[in-house]
């Protein structure tokens, strides 16, 4: 199996900090880290162990760490969550462009038992807005001046994807294949 996902551990702190502070990554995130350091990153990773509402993974292409996935706002009561992904290197980003979202959605729907994925995307992140539409996520809202970052307000698009809709669509992988790719499923 080429693509697989390992739960984030303290050993990933340095790598995640490098990605999380790269302007190419951070420019589309809602917040920037304040006084970032490996120690703070490690402490954040340690804190995840006690959280029911958040899970994070490093994405591996064979043995190479190439990106990050998070499942946030995991709500067991209402069976929904939000997702965030990035693949750092262009070659891996393109290679897995047609399959990555299937891994993410299958994990959310069949392992986290979510009924819905809700994602918020900053207006300036045009690529991800286009990708959400190609994933067949439904545009359900547009929030004006929703995020204040570096002294400027930013508008945000909201997309949702229901499990029942996802199950009617064609996907490149089945759930069993996705299951094998995660180290905690």
């Amino acid at each position, binding site marked *: 199996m080429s693509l697989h996902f390992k739960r984030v551990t303290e050993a990933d702190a340095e790598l995640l900090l490098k990605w999380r502070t790269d302007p190419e990554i951070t420019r589309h995130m809602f917040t920037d880290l304040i006084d970032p350091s490996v120690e703070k990153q490690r402490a954040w990773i340690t804190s995840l162990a006690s959280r029911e509402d958040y899970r994070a993974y490093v994405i591996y292409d064979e043995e190479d760490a190439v990106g990050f996935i998070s499942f946030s706002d995991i709500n067991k009561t209402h069976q929904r969550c939000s997702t965030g992904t990035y693949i750092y290197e262009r070659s891996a980003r393109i290679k897995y*462009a047609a399959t990555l979202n299937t891994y993410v959605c299958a994990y959310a729907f069949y392992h986290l038992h979510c009924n819905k994925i809700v994602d918020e995307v900053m207006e300036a992140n045009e690529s991800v807005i286009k990708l959400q539409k190609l994933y067949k996520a439904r545009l359900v809202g547009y929030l004006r001046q929703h995020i204040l970052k570096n002294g400027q307000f930013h508008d945000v698009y909201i997309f949702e994807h229901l499990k029942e809709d996802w199950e009617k669509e*064609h996907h490149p992988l089945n759930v069993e294949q996705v299951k094998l790719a995660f180290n905690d499923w």
Partner: protein
Amino acid sequence: MMNRKELLSAIEKIIELEPGSLHEEDVLFELAAWDSIAFLSVIAFYDEQFQFVPAGEQLENIKTIADLVALVEQRLTK
């Protein structure tokens, strides 16, 4: 039923390239226009036009335009 030339033209249109600019031996990764959106747009077109999405292993190992075209041919000859 589309022939190879028509399929190539459709791919050019989807990824917003000039007609006749793509060749089967072209390496996708070397094309400036080939990115995640282009890739997903072609697969969405296959799904809409031919009612199928190729298997993950095939998609993750595509290297050239010829590989992309072959996905449809393999499907239609099944």
